[in-house]
């Protein structure tokens, strides 16, 4: 992955010539601990320029978006193993697939990039908007000398847990407490580790 990182850096700085205006701001998004889709929708609004009062639909006026810590982006539910990316190569019968986990292992920036691109309107400006996105798996980026502005995500309303999930969580907590109490003496064969919640 370090090889890929070095390559990314050079490529990231290179494509800047094609973007005309530099009255644009440089917004920095930190993906650490953010839920994938919610982050992507915020980025999509910024990249389209929809948070500016001078929004014009036929002109691409979005800000440059830099996304850091792409490998730390989170996903709820069972999506880590169950979310599958499909694509068809064009040849008959060649529908390929790859799970979220494998994609993260291969190239974590692609996950966020796909999420954002699929949220942008499919028109002629989509490619230009793609060029304005720079995604980095870690927290280093070659744009340190630019005037960067961190983006504060709006507060998230987490819905309260469904009753079954809550009961399961309470059961696990109680088991964890009981195990801690029983540290001395006999341990029966009921060693079930409390399953880790996907972060």
């Amino acid at each position: 992955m370090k090889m890929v990182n070095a390559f990314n850096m050079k490529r990231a700085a290179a494509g800047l010539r094609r973007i005309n205006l530099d009255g644009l701001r440089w917004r920095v998004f930190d993906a650490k601990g953010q839920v994938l889709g919610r982050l992507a929708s915020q980025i999509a609004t910024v990249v389209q320029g929809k948070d500016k009062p001078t929004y014009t639909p036929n002109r691409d006026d979005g800000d440059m978006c830099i996304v850091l810590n792409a490998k730390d982006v989170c996903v709820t539910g069972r999506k880590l193993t169950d979310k599958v990316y499909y694509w068809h190569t064009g040849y008959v019968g060649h529908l390929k697939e790859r799970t979220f986990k494998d994609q993260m292992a291969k190239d974590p920036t692609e996950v966020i990039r796909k999420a954002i691109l699929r949220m942008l309107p499919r028109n002629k400006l989509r490619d230009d908007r793609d060029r304005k996105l720079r995604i980095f798996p870690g927290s280093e980026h070659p744009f340190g000398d630019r005037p960067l502005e961190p983006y504060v995500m709006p507060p998230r309303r987490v819905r309260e847990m469904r009753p079954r999930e809550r009961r399961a969580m309470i059961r696990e907590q109680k088991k964890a407490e009981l195990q801690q109490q029983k540290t001395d003496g006999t341990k029966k064969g009921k060693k079930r580790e409390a399953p880790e919640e996907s972060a």
Partner: protein
Amino acid sequence: MTRIKRGYIAGKRRRKIRLFTSSFRGAHSRLTRTITQQKIKALVSANRDRDRKKRGFRSLWIHRINAIIGKNKKKQYNRYSNLLYNIYKGQLLLNRKIVAQMGILKGNCLRMIANEIIT
């Protein structure tokens, strides 16, 4: 009956249409049959889009107002619907176009108005 040629009657008619279509691209300004078709299409589009234009601009103003609201006035309200509701309640005759233009050019004015409206 003697033979009568049609003369230039059809040509007169087509010349008018050709004048209309004179700035179109390629065959659409050169070939007679396509010229008549393209003129009809152009007029149809113009007619239809005169109404669409009104819709389009209204939607553009609403987008812009939303952008301004979301960015600045987080303390007060996040919503376009709230702002407009308050405008109606306060019996201001501002329409969306003016509000959107105010937001671009004179942001402070809009903020002052919004402040007064909420309370």
